[in-house]
């Protein structure tokens, strides 16, 4: 069985791998993390998962980024969503929930 901390460190390694950056760390303290607070990002309950989520969207040409963000907000029934990248076609990053 993996501990919560091991899962967390594994997730961090995955982020480094996706970004293709070195995953070299120095340990300053061997503090553990308490499973009563927060979540491993991939294991958040679905409502929390959505609020801290990101959609990498293959945007169809035509509608503007703003329109697409508005649709996604309505689909997910959330009030807050933003996007990075305007004017450019396709690949639209939509962050949902708090941003």
């Amino acid at each position, binding site marked *: 069985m993996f501990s919560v*901390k091991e*899962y*967390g*460190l*594994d*997730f*961090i390694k995955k*982020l*480094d791998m*996706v*970004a*293709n*950056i*070195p995953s*070299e*760390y*120095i*340990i*300053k*303290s*061997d*503090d*553990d*993390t*308490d499973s009563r*607070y*927060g979540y*491993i*990002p*991939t294991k*958040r309950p*679905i409502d929390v*998962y*959505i609020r*801290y*989520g*990101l*959609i*990498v*969207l*293959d*945007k*169809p040409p035509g509608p503007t980024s703003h329109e*697409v963000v508005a649709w*996604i907000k309505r*689909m*997910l029934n959330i009030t807050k969503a933003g996007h*990075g*990248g*305007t*004017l*450019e076609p*396709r*690949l639209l*990053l939509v*962050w*949902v*929930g*708090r*941003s």
Partner: protein
Amino acid sequence: MHSFKEYVGLMELHGDVDRERILETIKMFIGKIYQRPPLRSSVKRALRVKEVYSIDVLEINGRDILFKVRCESGTYVRKLCHDIGLLLGIEAHMRELRRIAVAHIREDLFTSTLHEVSEALYLWQRYGDDSILRNVIVPGEFIVAHLPKILIKDGAVDAIAHGAQLAVPGIAIFSKGITKGYRTALMTLKGELVAIGKAVMDSEEISRCEKGIAVEIERVVMEPNIYPRMWRRNQPQ
């Protein structure tokens, strides 16, 4: 979002030029270039310098040129095509463009279409199955994947979520790549993004120091009161 973007585009020339001259001319647009934002643009139309990291010509078919360009954020590819046409002396325009990467987020990684988002939501709302939705939406942490990371102790999390700066005693594990003056992601030991900020110490200083501010917070992402409050408010006398 700072850093680079990558596109595949289709450019159409308005005249006939031989292949060698096309390749040679395009090569001249690699590196730092002057660019004036187009008439229909969202930024001030002042001449500015943008860097083009690479242009790969994938295919030339008559007057059509299929290319891949990797450039600094804020470079107008439409304008780039136009300028290449001017230098060739026959003019040109961009016909199609598709962005394939924003920094480390590449289209093949976890891209979804609006239909996929809609279907995944339907499965969850109608049948309570969230497994597909969990693939369509990815943890927001991926957006800072490219930043060097500092993992902080549970006891420091809520102070940061409330807007405090990160001091050395709050640090548990840190990347060897922390550079003074550069952006850093502060994460919990579970891998949750708490905030991003500017490092005021580099890795070497963090490992040497026992106190002092290590990171100045720029943006807090985690909501307060998720982790226990371990810090004291200054009591009014």
